[in-house]
C-alpha cells in the first residue's frame, strides 16, 4: 500500500503537507502536531515534529542515535509532555489527561522498552503475568494458559521459570515483547525491538510484530535502526534527524528514493546529510596537538 506518491514522499515537512495522504487513507489514531520538546532549555530534542499513524497500521520511526525517536514514544505514553504542539491519541490530547484518563490511556498501550525493563525480582512467567494480575480478574489457570501462549509466540515457553538474569540479551528482549503484548493492546510501541537478536529471532520477531498488528487489529509504532527488517514488515516510515521529520514514505517509495538522507540511511554511508561525528568546538588537529 502506498500512502504518498514517490514525488512528494521525501520533500521536507515545511515544503508540503507531510502526510496528508497517510492520514486521509485511514482514521488517524496517533497524531503529533508540530511537537517540540527538550529535556533542558538549551537543547531541543524535537523541533516541530508532525506525524500521523492511522488505525491498524504499522509505522516505523527511524533516525540516528539521539535524534529523538524514543522521546516520541515517551510523549505518547504521557511520561513527558511536549513543550509545544499537540500529541493526540484517539483524538484526545495526552497533555490534558488527568490521572484517571492517563491510566485508562496507558491500559490501551503496550510498550517494549529499549533495554527490556523486565522486573528482575520476578520469573519470566511472573513478568508476563504481571499486567494480567494488575488489570484483570482472570483466574490463575487462564492466566497460566495466556502467559504460555505469549511465551510460545516468542519461542521461549521453556524459560517460564527462569529469572531475567538467566536470559541472554536477545531472549530478555523477546520476553519483554511477550509482556508488551500480554493484554493485546490497542496500540503497541516498540523501542528497538530488533537490537541484540540473532538473525533467526530477528526474522521471527519481525513477522510476529506484523502478524500481531494485523490479527489483533493493533496499531503499532516501531522505533528502530534496522532498516532491512523494517522494510519487510512496516506500512510506512518516518525518518527523523535533529529533531525533525526529514523524510517519509511507504516501503516502495523508500526503496526507490533518491533523497540523500534516505539513501545514506538505507545504504549505511558514512558521508551524507547525517553527520557521523558529534559536533566539537575543536578541530581534530587541535585535539591531538
Amino acid at each position, binding site marked *: 500500500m502506498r500512502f504518498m506518491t514517490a514525488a512528494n514522499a521525501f520533500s521536507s515537512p515545511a515544503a508540503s503537507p507531510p502526510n496528508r495522504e497517510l492520514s486521509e487513507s485511514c482514521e488517524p489514531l496517533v497524531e503529533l502536531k508540530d511537537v517540540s520538546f527538550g529535556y533542558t532549555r538549551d537543547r531541543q530534542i524535537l523541533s516541530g515534529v508532525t506525524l500521523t499513524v492511522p488505525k491498524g497500521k504499522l509505522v516505523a520511526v527511524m533516525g540516528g542515535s539521539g535524534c529523538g525517536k524514543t522521546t516520541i514514544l515517551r510523549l505518547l505514553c504521557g*511520561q513527558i509532555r511536549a513543550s509545544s504542539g499537540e500529541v493526540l491519541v484517539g483524538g484526545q490530547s495526552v497533555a490534558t489527561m488527568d490521572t484517571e484518563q492517563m491510566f485508562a490511556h*496507558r491500559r490501551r498501550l503496550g510498550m517494549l*522498552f529499549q533495554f527490556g525493563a523486565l522486573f*528482575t525480582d520476578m520469573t519470566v512467567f511472573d513478568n508476563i503475568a504481571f499486567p494480567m494480575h494488575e488489570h484483570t480478574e482472570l483466574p490463575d489457570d487462564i492466566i497460566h494458559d495466556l502467559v504460555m501462549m505469549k511465551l510460545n509466540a516468542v519461542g521461549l515457553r521453556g524459560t517460564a521459570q527462569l529469572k531475567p538474569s538467566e536470559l541472554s540479551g536477545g531472549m530478555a528482549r523477546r520476553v519483554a515483547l511477550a509482556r508488551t503484548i500480554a493484554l493485546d493492546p490497542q496500540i503497541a510501541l516498540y523501542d528497538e525491538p530488533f537490537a541484540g537478536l540473532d538473525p533467526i529471532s530477528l526474522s521471527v520477531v519481525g513477522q510476529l510484530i506484523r502478524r500481531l498488528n494485523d490479527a489483533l487489529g493493533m496499531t503499532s509504532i516501531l522505533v528502530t535502526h534496522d532498516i532491512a527488517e523494517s522494510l519487510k514488515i512496516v506500512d510506512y516510515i518516518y525518518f527523523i534527524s535533529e529533531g525533525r521529520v526529514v523524510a517519509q514514505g511507504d516501503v516502495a517509495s523508500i526503496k526507490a528514493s533518491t533523497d540523500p538522507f534516505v539513501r545514506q540511511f538505507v545504504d549505511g554511508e558514512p558521508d551524507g546529510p547525517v553527520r557521523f561525528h558529534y559536533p566539537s568546538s575543536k578541530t581534530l588537529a587541535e585535539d591531538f596537538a
Partner: protein
Amino acid sequence: MKPALNAVTRVLSSLGATVINATARAGFGARFFMALIRQSPASFMRPQLILKEIYQAGVLSLIIVLMSGLFIGMVLALQGYETLVRFGATESMGVLVALSLVRELGPVVAALLFASRAGSAITAEIGLMKTTEQLSAMEVMAVDPIARVVSPRFWGGVISLPLLSALFSTMGIYGGYLVGVRLIGIDGGAFWGQMQAAVDWQHDVMNGVVKSVVFAFAVSLIAVFEGYDAQPTAEGVSAATTRTVVTSALAILALDFVLTVFMFRGGLN
C-alpha cells in the same frame, strides 16, 4: 575590581542554585510523601506485597540484629560489672542491662543496623529499578510504582523495625544474663527480680517501643525516597545508598535526643 565582582557573582549564583535545588527536592519530597500516604490503603488491600517486604527487610535482618543484640548485652554486663562492683551493687546488673536496652540501645542500635542492612538495600533496589526502567515500565502499564513498589517497602520497614528492636533488646538481656549470671556468677534471682521490680512497662518499655516506631517511619521513608529520587546511573544509585545510611543515622540520633527529652527529661526541667 571586576574579578572580585565576578567572584561574588559566582558565589551568589552557586548559593542560589543550592537553595533552588534544596527547595525543589523538599517540594518533591513532600509530594512523594503525600503520594505514598495516598497509595498506602491500596497496599494494605494486597497484604502479600507487604508480607514479602517484611520478609526482605525484617526476617533477613534477623541474624545481624540478634547477634548484635547478644554481643551488646554481653558487653553491657561486663562493663556494668566493672562499675557496679565498686559500689557493691552487682545484683543491679539486670536493671542496668534491661534499662539500657529497652530505653536506648534496643531502639537506636536496631534502627542503625536496620538502616545499614535493609534501608540501603531498599534504596539500591528502587534506584536500580529506576535505572533499568522497571519503574517506567510499570507506569506505562498503568501501574503506579508508588503503590506497587514504594508503599509495600515503606510499610514493610515500618512494621519490621519495632519487632526487630524488641528482639534486639530480648537478645541483649539474654546476653547480659549469660555473662552476669552464668559467667561471672551473680545470683540469677537477684538479676531477674531486680529487673522485674525496676523496669516499668509504661515508662520504660512502651517509650522504647514509641522510639522504635518513630525510627521505623524515619528510616523507611528516607530509604524509599532516596531510591525513588536517585539519579538513574550507577554513581547515582551508589550516592543514594550512601545518603540513606548517613541521613538515617543522623536522623535516628537526632530524633532519639528529642524523644528522650520528652520521655525521660533527666536533669532537664
